[in-house]
């Protein structure tokens, strides 16, 4: 079933891709092939592969339970929030929260995860910023 869905999504994606490729504006300087042809070929390959997957599907993968899917979704949301928090809160503070959350969801107790978050954040800051001189996001307190 999953592979059939993948096949349908692939065909739709290929259709969208080829449609977008035909909309590429051509400039006045151009070569015999032009900017459209190769993307269209790629789209056609994508479509053929998707059709093949649709008609010859593998057995279904083992999908996690809905609650676990929700957790993965939540982790993605935390990562997105993290990227926006980086320039506002600075690397150290944002990273403490993000890595503590991930450690917690990976099975650490709340206290363990806070300690882990602190160690990971300060550790990365010390190694990559203080020793190796990599520039990290600066927050209101300068770290």
């Amino acid at each position, binding site marked *: 079933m999953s592979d059939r869905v*993948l096949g349908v999504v692939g065909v739709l994606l290929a259709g969208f891709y080829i449609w977008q490729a035909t909309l590429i504006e*051509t400039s006045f300087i151009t070569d*015999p092939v032009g900017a459209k042809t190769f993307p269209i070929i790629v789209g056609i390959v994508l479509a053929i592969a998707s059709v093949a997957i649709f008609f010859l599907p593998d057995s279904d993968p083992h999908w996690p339970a809905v609650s676990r899917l929700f957790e993965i979704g939540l982790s993605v949301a935390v990562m*997105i929030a993290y*990227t926006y928090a980086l320039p506002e809160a600075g690397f150290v503070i944002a990273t403490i929260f993000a890595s503590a959350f991930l450690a917690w969801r990976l099975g650490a107790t709340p206290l363990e995860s806070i300690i882990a978050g602190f160690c990971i954040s300060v550790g990365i800051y010390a190694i990559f910023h203080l020793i190796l001189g990599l520039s990290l996001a600066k927050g209101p307190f300068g770290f």
Partner: protein
Amino acid sequence: MDTLFALADGFAVALTWQNLLLALIGCFLGTIIGALPGLGPSNGVAILIPLAFSLGLGATPALILLTSVYYGAMYGGRISSILLNIPGDEPAVMTTLDGYPMAKNGQAGEALALSGIASFVGSFVATIGLAFLAPQLVKLALLFGPAEYFALYVLAFATLGGIASANQGKAAFAAALGLGIAMVGVDGQTGVPRFSFGNVHLYDGINFLVAIVGLFALSEVFIFLEHRNEETDGNPDSKVKIGRMLPSWAMLKGCFGAISRSTVIGFLAGVLPGAGASLGSFMAYGLEKKISDKDKTFGKGDPRGVAAPEAGNNAAAGGALVPMLALGVPGSGTTAVLLAMLMALNITPGPLLFTKNPDVVWGLIAALIIANVMLLALNIPMVGIFVRILMIPTKYLMPAVAMISFVGIYGISGSTFDLMVMILFGVLGWVLRKLDVPLVPVIMGVLLGNAMEVNLRRAMTISNGDWSTLVASPLSISIWTLAVAGFVLPIIAGKYLRRAKPTVPEVAETEAD
């Protein structure tokens, strides 16, 4: 003789204190990365590229650091295979078959040392092979025109699909997806934006480093989030006794044949475009079992069953560098990642690399030989340290991996947009892995897409738009034939490989108990 002189120059480049130190750090880090379950050569190197890049290392030092990590990871994968029965990375799967039973018999130390020696022989011979074979391939490659290069890229994708994946449709799907992603951004030849939907961030295209770190490293974090509590955290339940640290002379002598055969097979498997180290160790173990398993001792802790796959996968790692350096076509997932690093440093691999930047090529090859010796020296006496590092539970390791990925990508551009794209690729990588769509063709598509298109358009410009130019020379016809054969043959004849591969872990369990 030229090769020897060039190699001597290479040693002159590599033997600076800075480069030696980098090689040592790389070997050490690489062994750790390879040993930790969930981190393998490709995602380990992927995380480190942006870091090496943003630290402002020069081309040769950066390349030395990262290839040392690559070789180190190949060594490290065996440690958790032998001690925990959990392969540290994919090529180390075959090592669990006899390595873990050996550890259970109280021969863990001998198994580790033996596999270390086998790894050394495999990669040492392969590196020498690389030094001699790559220049020959370069001579051939100088005959290649744009049409031949276009065919060569098709060959790489076709064979990658045939060998790396169980389902040709999915391999082709992955390749097309990667190529499609590579098309995003301003077209280099006519200057028109493509697939950028008016978004300024997309005009530069999608940075392949962002795609690689997302697909390889971040998706691994999601896999671990999904499987929390399902497996042990990498802690050995029962303390496996390490035992004596050096194999007996008789054991080494008994493994000599296995190591030499596996080295040759591994090297050849590595040189094939798209095959890589997993196939090398798989074939080496399979053949050794056919030749030597007269008393049915394989799978019960036969030393030859440890030596063969380790020699095979390390030889394949060296072999995979041949097409990557000489043609610019990577032979495996990790070499695709190394190719990404070269491109990030503005070095284009291929025949011209050997004439334009001989210091890079030969410095690298010399560094590989040095790294190899270092790894042997590190791995035999210091294996206890790596065993202790293995105890880091994944609940602390994976958050650190995720955060270092963010640091690396942020270090390149400092842009929130790139981080968002990385997260997107992380989710995409997770979904594709669930659906058994291979990730390596996606990466290769993203990396090679533009070069592939440029060569197609160059060939067509030369021929004034005549498509038959793609099959006009005997060389290109033979490459096309190989490509078609490489894609079609596995569908017909590859059922053996396909059936044998997934059953490997089950065999390991039933025979170990």
